[in-house]
């Protein structure tokens, strides 16, 4: 199951809850304000590195560009809207809104 998070990890607990519940190996997709979680060099970055040990992490490129998030935590993969659709086609999706 794909777990989708659209809230900033600095102000909202959604990503931490999603990562705690999500079964090991299931992918996490960061969209909208959720992409800030993927920024390298932040106080959250070490937590994302931990999450990456158990989950592939994807970020939506259009949302990254909109927010000028140009340095990513190592291992994070980018997808565009087309790749987003492919992820949802591959597996069921839950939104941690």
């Amino acid at each position, binding site marked *: 199951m794909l777990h*989708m998070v*659209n809230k900033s990890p600095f102000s909202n607990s959604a990503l931490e809850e999603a990562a705690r519940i999500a079964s090991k190996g299931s992918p996490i997709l960061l*969209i*909208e*304000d959720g992409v800030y979680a993927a920024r390298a060099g932040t106080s959250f970055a070490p937590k994302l590195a931990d999450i990456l040990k158990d989950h592939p992490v994807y970020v*939506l490129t*259009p949302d990254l560009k909109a927010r000028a998030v140009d340095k990513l935590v190592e291992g994070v993969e980018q997808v*565009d*809207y*087309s790749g*987003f*659709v*492919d992820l*949802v*086609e591959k597996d*069921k*999706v839950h*939104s941690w*809104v």
Partner: protein
Amino acid sequence: MKFAVQVLEAPYNNQASDTAYHFIKAALDKGHTIVRVFFYHNGVVNANNSAEPPNDDRNIYKRWTELGKEKGIDIVACIAASKRRGIKEGQIVEGTRISGLGQLADMTIEADRLITFG
């Protein structure tokens, strides 16, 4: 594949409507089917036909008309949520309709994937 899409926030106020639109466009481009789009919570504001967004910005309401009327996608605002927020029959965006929560249950069962934007 058959996708169902739920939108839980008002247009402009949150990005949910934008992301839902871009997702739907990309899904259609890849040959997928959109079973239905369902607006719930403040998402019902997406069906309000009285809006006049600034000319220099995207028109989210027209996007729903494009998808509903031109692409033939069924777009539904929940009636109970609409009544609380003043969206009503006769004042809704062309290409959308108002109906009950059963339409959400129904699309959830019918579609291969339910995706929620909120």
